[in-house]
């Protein structure tokens, strides 16, 4: 692995790494409202963006306004970010739906803390997983990513921006308090060492532009406001010209395309890491900081002669079904440790369809699931 240039190393918080990743991905607009434990993302953006050429930072009056502002900025051509936690994520659901409907690229980082309601502001949890999937009303596709260590916070933020731009959709990055508040050494990749994708813009004369036209990828090109392509953006179900419609065939065409533009690219979107799963009898399926505990538990189990493996989910939704089925080919037991009452294990069970026995480990006391807890369940087989 020859590296032409040495990468800069920093000792950074997970939240700090999100900022580094966002800036590398081309983010030039942050709108937000502070909330523990995500505030460092906002604070660092407040310090960094005004020093860049065209970076805009704005603190809004609440999380609803934060979403409105970043959607507006995205429509005006910016790559945009907001970050929040717990109650703030609930407030963002309204305009999250708008961003899906109006196909507005944006990245929303939710640093999960204990809930419901104000809950446990400074303790980790993974209780927003199903909210990330279904929090906004109506049938909708969504991309939800996750990161389990500080380097991944950087890498997955870049990935989130790329997916948002590529698929013209909001992407949620779910972190938890442990990942966000751990400091670790990370490498900042050099330009050219990672992909940066920017939304496709129309390449025809404005009069011929149909803002929501069917394309092969299902993703129509998107011009920035004010660039000569005048069109109508709305949260109502709309036709190819962007105008509201109630005609059944146009409703179906739009909503099906919104799903299809994600569904046909599962291979690009569904990201996992595997550790020792090739021959594993017992496979732990974990994400976020709990995946770190799981990794240690799997290694200890191997030392104790149990063929254990880890399927680490970096994409939570759309749920990586194929990768799960691969481990199901030989796994007798699936272990799903989570800091919630079993939100991701629902997905695992849905895919498992009774093939392996699914053991869940659930903690809701504001503490991370420890390696020893997971090891105990692995050893029970």
């Amino acid at each position, binding site marked *: 692995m020859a590296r032409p240039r040495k990468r800069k*190393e*920093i*000792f950074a918080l997970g939240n700090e790494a999100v900022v580094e990743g966002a800036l590398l991905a081309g983010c030039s607009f942050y709108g937000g409202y502070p909330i*523990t*434990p995500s505030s460092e993302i906002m604070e660092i953006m407040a310090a960094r963006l005004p020093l860049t050429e065209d970076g805009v930072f704005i603190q809004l009056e609440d999380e609803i306004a934060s979403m409105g502002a970043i959607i507006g900025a995205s429509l005006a051509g910016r790559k945009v970010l907001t970050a929040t936690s717990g109650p703030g994520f609930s407030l963002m659901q309204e305009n999250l739906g708008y961003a899906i409907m109006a196909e507005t690229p944006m990245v929303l980082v939710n640093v999960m803390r204990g809930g419901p309601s104000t809950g446990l*502001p*400074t303790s980790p949890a993974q209780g927003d997983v199903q909210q990330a999937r279904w929090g906004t009303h109506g049938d909708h596709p969504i991309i939800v990513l996750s990161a389990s*260590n500080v380097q991944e916070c950087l890498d997955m933020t870049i990935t989130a921006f790329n997916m948002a731009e590529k698929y013209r959709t909001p992407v949620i990055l779910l972190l938890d*308090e*442990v990942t966000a*508040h*751990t*400091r*670790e*050494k990370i490498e900042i990749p050099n330009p050219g060492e990672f992909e940066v994708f920017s939304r496709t813009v129309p390449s025809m004369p404005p009069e011929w532009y149909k803002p929501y036209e069917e394309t092969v990828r299902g993703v129509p090109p998107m011009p920035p406001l004010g660039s000569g392509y005048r069109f109508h953006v709305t949260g109502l179900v709309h036709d190819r010209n962007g105008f509201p419609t109630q005609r059944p065939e146009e409703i179906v065409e739009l909503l099906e395309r919104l799903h299809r533009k994600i569904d046909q690219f599962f291979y690009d979107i569904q990201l996992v890491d595997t550790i020792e799963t090739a021959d594993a009898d017992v496979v732990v399926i974990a994400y976020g*900081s709990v995946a*770190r*505990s799981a*990794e*240690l538990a799997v*290694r200890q189990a191997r030392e104790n002669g149990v063929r254990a493996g880890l399927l680490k989910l970096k994409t939570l939704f759309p749920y990586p079904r194929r990768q799960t089925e691969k481990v199901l080919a030989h796994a007798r037991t699936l272990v799903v440790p989570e800091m919630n009452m079993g939100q991701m294990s629902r997905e695992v069970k849905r895919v498992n369809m009774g093939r392996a026995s699914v053991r869940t480990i659930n903690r809701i006391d504001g503490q*991370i699931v*420890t*390696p020893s807890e997971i090891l105990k369940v692995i050893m029970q087989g």
Partner: protein
Amino acid sequence: MKQQQQLHRFEIRFSGLGGQGIITLGRVMGQGLALGHGYNVTQTQSYGPEARGGSSRCDLVISSEPISYPKAESLDLLVALSQEACNAYYPYLKPGGALVLESDLVKQPPTNRFLGLPFTSLARDKVGVAQAMNTVVLGALSHLLPFISQSVMRKSLESSLPAKIRAVNVKAFNLGHRLAKKEWGDDAGEVWRVEDSERD
């Protein structure tokens, strides 16, 4: 850089009162070990009300291998800068682990096996700045822990500080290092060096 000593999850907890600079201490040391010495390090800390009021806590996990679980569970070294912190976290010290105390503030040590120095009065009287107490601790630990190179850590410290407080802190760092060597002896941390070379 000389050959890095092999470490397998060495866990340190810094604890004490809010305002003693505990988090900064952990962060500076973590940064020095991660960037200067090339170890894998995870640093976590107490947040929220805990970090504002009474007690403060900052953990480091240091390892030659990638660190999976980032939190400290079983401490190799506990640094207690207040009686409450000492009482609260002593039970997490692993058998054979070391306890470093602020000897003026921890009047009732839970054990006779500890290493103490009056860090606060040293900073106030010998450096002239009481707030430099955490840097005195850093200097002392740079002597105690055999896998820390004093010069590398000092350089890392300097690079993380604004110019106007750099000189004071270097003075505090050197003082801590010198006194630890004098009071605790040359081989105070030898236990870790031996253990690790045996493991390899």
